[in-house]
C-alpha cells in the first residue's frame, strides 16, 4: 500500500523521466562506478570504498590501518598537515577518511566551481601521503587519549569483552583502533605497508551523486585513481565461530549497567537473510515498536533504549543486542530479554507483525534516498557488497516475498535462547555469572 511512487521517480531530479536515475558507467581506463546526475545544487558527493580494512593489520600491529587512515588528511605531496587543511578550507570542500575491520572509505564533497582543484588535492592524499613524524606523534597521542577514555566507558567495555569472547585471536576480537601498546609501537613503515595493502584499484567501489555528468566522471576517475596500484581482489574465508554461552560481569563504578548480548547471525547472501532481517526488525529493530522495546521499555520502564542488530562482517555474522538499566534493574531487563528470545524462537511472529514490519520496511526504503551525500553513500555500499543496480527496484519485492511459515522457520533456526552470551559492565545486583 505504500508503493505509491516508483523508486525511479524518487531518485530522479523531480523530472518526469522516472527510471533513468542511477547509471552504471565504466571509465576509459576501466574503472566502474555508479552515478546519479542531479544538477539542482552545484556540488558533488563522491564516495570511494576499498574492500579490506583494519582486519588486515598484522596481529602485532593492531591500529596500523586506523592511524594510517587518519594520517591521510595530515599532509600529502608538497603540503604538510596545516597547509593541507588550509587548502581544503580554501576550496570549501570536505574529505572524510574512515576505516572499519572490512573497509576503508573516503567521502568527498566539493563545489562544482572547485571540482578540478579539489580532486587534485584528494589525489595527493591517496597517492602521496607524507606520514610526517610530527603528524604521526600528534595523531598517536590523540588515539591514546581516545583509547583511555573508552576504557572507562561501560558500553565500550561491554562491547570489547563480548567481541573478545566471540572472535578470540582473530582480528575481529580486538578493536581496529588498537591498544595502548600496539599503538605505541607503530612506525612509519607500518603505515606505508597498510597504505600499499589497502589502497588498491581492484578492491574499489565508486559512486558519485550531484552536479556531475556520466561523461565527465569517467576521465575524472581515471585521473584520480589511475595511479593507484592494481592490487588484487580480496579473498576472505568464513570464520568458524565458537561464541561462548553465559554471562560475564565486568565491574565498573557506574550507576547504570550496560549489557551486550547475542549469538551467531546470518550472512547477507544467505537465502534466509530477508526473513532474518524482518525477524530482527520485529524483535529489536528500529522504526516500528519492537517486541523488546514494548516489553522492556514501554511496559516496564526498565530502560531508555534497547535494540538488536544483524551484523554481517566479511568473515563472520552475529546477532547483537544492547540495553542499559540501573544496576538494580538490569537483572529484570535480562530476564525479559531471555523470555522474549525464547518465545519468538518457539512461537514465531504473528501474521499481523509480519505485515506491519513489511509495510514499514518497504515504505521506509525509498525515503532513504534523500540528498546527494546520502544517495552516494548508499550506492557505494551496495556495490561493495555485490548488489546489482536492479536491487534498488527488486529489494522491496524480496521483503514482501517472505511468508509467515518462512520467517517462523528462520526464527526457530536463528534464535537460540540457550546460546545467548551476555556481557554486563557495571555493578549489577541480583545477577549470577555463568
Amino acid at each position: 500500500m505504500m508503493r505509491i511512487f516508483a523508486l525511479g521517480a524518487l531518485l530522479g531530479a523531480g523530472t518526469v523521466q522516472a527510471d533513468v536515475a542511477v547509471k552504471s558507467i565504466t571509465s576509459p581506463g576501466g574503472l566502474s562506478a555508479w552515478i546519479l546526475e542531479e544538477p539542482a545544487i552545484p556540488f558533488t558527493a563522491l564516495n570511494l570504498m576499498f574492500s579490506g580494512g583494519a582486519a588486515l593489520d598484522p596481529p602485532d600491529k593492531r591500529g596500523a590501518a586506523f592511524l594510517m587512515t587518519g594520517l591521510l588528511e595530515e599532509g600529502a605531496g608538497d603540503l604538510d598537515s596545516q597547509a593541507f587543511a588550509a587548502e581544503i578550507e580554501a576550496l570549501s570542500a570536505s574529505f572524510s577518511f574512515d576505516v572499519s575491520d572490512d573497509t576503508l572509505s573516503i567521502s568527498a564533497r566539493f563545489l562544482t566551481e572547485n571540482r578540478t582543484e579539489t580532486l587534485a588535492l584528494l589525489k595527493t592524499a591517496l597517492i602521496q601521503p607524507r606520514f610526517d613524524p610530527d603528524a604521526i606523534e600528534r595523531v598517536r597521542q590523540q588515539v591514546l587519549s581516545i583509547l583511555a577514555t573508552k576504557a572507562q566507558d561501560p558500553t565500550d567495555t561491554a562491547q570489547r569483552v563480548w567481541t573478545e569472547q566471540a572472535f578470540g585471536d582473530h582480528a575481529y576480537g580486538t578493536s581496529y583502533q588498537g591498544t595502548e601498546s600496539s599503538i605505541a609501537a607503530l612506525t612509519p613503515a607500518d603505515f606505508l605497508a597498510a597504505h600499499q595493502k589497502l589502497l588498491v584499484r581492484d578492491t574499489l567501489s565508486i559512486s558519485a551523486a550531484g552536479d556531475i555528468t556520466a561523461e565527465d566522471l569517467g576521465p575524472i576517475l581515471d585521473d584520480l585513481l589511475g595511479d593507484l596500484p592494481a592490487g588484487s581482489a580480496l579473498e576472505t574465508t568464513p570464520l568458524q565461530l565458537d561464541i561462548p554461552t553465559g554471562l560475564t560481569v565486568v565491574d565498573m563504578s557506574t550507576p547504570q549497567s550496560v549489557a551486550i548480548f547475542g549469538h551467531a547471525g546470518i550472512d547477507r547472501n544467505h537465502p534466509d537473510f530477508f526473513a532474518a532481517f524482518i525477524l530482527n526488525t520485529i524483535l529489536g529493530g528500529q522504526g516500528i515498536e519492537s517486541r523488546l522495546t514494548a516489553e522492556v521499555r514501554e511496559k516496564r520502564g526498565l530502560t531508555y533504549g534497547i535494540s538488536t542488530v544483524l551484523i554481517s562482517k566479511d568473515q563472520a555474522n552475529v546477532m547483537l543486542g544492547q540495553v542499559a538499566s540501573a544496576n538494580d534493574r538490569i537483572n529484570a531487563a535480562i530476564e525479559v530479554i531471555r523470555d522474549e528470545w525464547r518465545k519468538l524462537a518457539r512461537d514465531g511472529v504473528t501474521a499481523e507483525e509480519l505485515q506491519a514490519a513489511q509495510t514499514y520496511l518497504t515504505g521506509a526504503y525509498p525515503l532513504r534516498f534523500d540528498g546527494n551525500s546520502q544517495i552516494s553513500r548508499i550506492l557505494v555500499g551496495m556495490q561493495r557488497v555485490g548488489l546489482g543496480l536492479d536491487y534498488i527496484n527488486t529489494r522491496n519485492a524480496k521483503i514482501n516475498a517472505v511468508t509467515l511459515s518462512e520467517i517462523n522457520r528462520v526464527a526457530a533456526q536463528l534464535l537460540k535462547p540457550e546460546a545467548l552470551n551476555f556481557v554486563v559492565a557495571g555493578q549489577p545486583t541480583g545477577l549470577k555469572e555463568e
Partner: protein
Amino acid sequence: MFNRLFAILCLCVPLEALAQGKTTDFILDNGMQVVVIEDHRAPVVVHMVWYKVGSADEPSGKSGIAHFLEHLMFKKTKNLQAGELADTVAANGGSHNAFTSLDYTGYYQRVAADRLELMMQMESDRMTGLQLSPDDIAVERNVVIEERNQRTESAPGALFKEHLNAALFLNHPYGVPIVGWMHELEELNYDDAMAFYKQHYAPNNAILVVAGDVTPDDVKTLAERYYGVLPANRAITPRARRQEPPHRAARRVIFHDERVAQPFFTRTYLAPERNSGNQRGAAALVYLAQILGGSSATSVLGRTLQYDTKQAIYTSAQYRPMALDPSTFSLVAVPASDVSLQQIEDALEATIANFMADGIDIELFERIKSQFRASEIYAMDNVSGIAQRYGAALTQGLTVADVQAWPQILQEITPEEVMTLAGQLFDEKASVTGWLMGPKEQAQ
C-alpha cells in the same frame, strides 16, 4: 594554490535566490505560524511542530517536566491510543521523533509527501487532546530516569557540564539541566505534566514547519483544516524569564571523578545571542569561534597549542548563536599527557592574549567566510536541516526575515567587528573555568 584562492573569490553564486525562493510563511487565524519550504527533488515531506516552550520555562522545583511531557505526548489522546501515532507513522514507512531544548520542544515526522494530511491529523490531535493516565506517569518516569542514567550519570563529562552551567548562570534557568536534576525528576507527577501541557501547548504557542515536495497552497488548506480549528489559549504570554544580574566574580569548578581517564580544561563566558533585527554581534562571534577553535590545523588555539607548543592534543571553541536569552561561548583544551591543567590554562590564556594583541590572520578569515558561503549550498541538500533552522529560530525570538538575512550578514562581517566582540566577550568576571580530572588522590 593561488589559483585556488582566486577561484574562491570568484564564487559568486546568488545565495539569496537559491536559499529563499522556495520559502513561504503565513499565520493562521488562531495565531499559529506556518513555514513552508519547497524541495521537489523527492516526493518526501518533513512535518514539524515546534512549541515555544523548553526546559527554561519550567516552574521552580519541577526540572525535567518539559522533557518528561515530550515523552508523555506519545500516550493516549482524544483520538489516538497510546503508541498509535508511532505505529501509524511506521505503517506508512515514515520516521518520527521529538526533542526538548532549553527554549523549545519539537515533534516531527518524515513521510511520503501524500501522507502529510494524516500526520497533521495526528499531530493536531495531541496538541490539545492528551489524556494521560497515572500508569503512564510511573512507567515513563522510569524511562526518563534511565535516560538520565545513560546520558548523564554514566558520563562524567556530562555531570561536569551540568556543574559548569549551574555555576555560570547565577539566576537564569539556563543553569538547570534539560533532563532535570535527579531528585526533582523522581518526584514529577500527573498534575505537573498536565499543568505544564495546558499552560503551553496551544496553536498560538506553536510553529508548523513543512518542508519537501509540497506547495504552500496545499499546506495552507490542510493546516487550516487541522490546526486552524483549535482554539488559541489567550492565557499564553510572551516568555519573560529571570535574567542574569551583573557578574562580579569569576567562578571555578574542579570536578573529580574516578571514571575520568583524560582530564581537560574549559572556560565558558556569557555571550550575546542572535536577536531579531540585530544579529551582527552573534555573527561576529560565529567567526570568532571558527578563528579560535574551528580547525585543529589552522585555528589560533589549534595552531599554537597543538602544532607549535604541542601542549594540547585537542582544542576547540564553541558558540551557540541561537538562544532566546543570553548564550555561552566556550574554550576547550585537552592537555598532552605531560602537561598539567594549570599549565594548559596558562598557555590558553596567553594564546588568547596574543590573539587580542595581534589580531586576525586575514587569510584564515577569508577562508572561513568562503566556507560559510559554501555551507549554504551544501545545506540545500538536506531540507530537514533547513526546516530545523526555521523551527529553532522562530521559537528563539527570531523571524523568517532574520533567518533569511543571516547568510548575507555572515558575508558582511569584518575582522574589526570580530575583534570588537572578542574584546567584550573575554570578561573573566562573567565566566566559569572548569577542570575535569580523575580521583582526587591521584591528582597532581
